[in-house]
């Protein structure tokens, strides 16, 4: 499987719908301080099912909804979708059972939405599913729920300063 695209609307500083096509190789994101680079990383962690507001730097999960600016109203909801190329049939886990046989899908779309009141929904290929279904779908792929494959901006220090018993979690998650 590989990621084809990531689209965001109303998510953090991405008030307007934005689509990033992801290449098979190396994608590099650059820009000034505060422009939104780490927000892209947060969007990916978030749509893949992170449960921790802290992982996306918020106090509550609803903090990811675009909060507005002096010249722009706040959004009512945040929506992120990833399109995964599944032509290799890699994604065939239980999670897609609720959306018919996964192997049949050469393209899998996972989406997550949250309203300002905190009410959240997930979709797989357009069908409403539970958070658990997304977890099961992705668990086969080596993507744990704490998403050890996403190394955030302060995370190197976190791993270094962690107690030895905390550090094992990175291996447990990947195992």
């Amino acid at each position, binding site marked *: 499987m590989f990621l084809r695209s990531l689209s965001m609307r109303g998510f953090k500083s991405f008030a307007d719908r934005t689509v990033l096509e992801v290449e098979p190789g190396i*994608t*590099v994101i650059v820009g*000034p301080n505060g422009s*939104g680079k780490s927000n892209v990383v947060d969007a990916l962690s978030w749509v893949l099912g992170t449960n921790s507001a802290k992982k996306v730097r918020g106090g509550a999960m609803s903090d990811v909804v675009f909060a507005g600016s002096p010249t722009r109203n706040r959004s009512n909801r945040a929506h992120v979708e990833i399109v995964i190329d599944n032509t290799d049939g890699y994604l065939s886990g239980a999670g897609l059972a609720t959306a018919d046989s996964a192997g049949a899908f050469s393209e899998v779309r996972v989406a997550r939405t949250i309203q300002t009141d905190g009410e959240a929904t997930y979709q797989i290929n357009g069908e409403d599913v539970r958070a658990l279904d997304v977890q099961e779908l992705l668990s086969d792929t080596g993507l744990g729920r704490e998403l*050890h494959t996403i190394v955030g901006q302060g995370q190197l220090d976190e791993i270094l300063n962690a107690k030895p018993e905390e550090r094992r979690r990175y*291996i447990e998650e990947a195992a």
Partner: protein
Amino acid sequence: IRAVFKAAFDDVAREFELTFETVFPGGHGRLVLTGSDDLLTAGIEVEARPPGKKVTRLSLLSGGERSLTVLAFVFAIFRARPSPFYVLDEVDAALDDVNLQRLLKVIRSFRGHAQIILVTHQKRSMEIADVLYGITMGPDAVTKVVAERLRDQAAKSQQLEERAS
């Protein structure tokens, strides 16, 4: 469960020794299980000896040495238990030019086996991009994105100049 963890730990520990030597040529690093005989509660200690130096506690290593050591740990996990993609957000911040090149070599080695998304301020890190996304914040506090495909070398060096933080 203990067996699953032990197998993963052994694989990661082996990869860590190899990856450490790639980012610290002539140095030596290893992972050690500590604190408890029970595999379910034992912790993981990281031992690092940069080239030409004596084994020393992790806290005495420099900022860049510590970055590189924990990056070797992270990449060891990626190699022992591969995933389809990896995302790295400004992991190169503390590295000097020489160490940055060593890191980029490790990152490039994943190309073809996984997708990599790299966020950076460093010009040298931009050079390994297949696609470069330039991000800016608009006057209304909304992010805009401009994409460049960089397989065309001529366009590449020009855009690197424009896009650099």
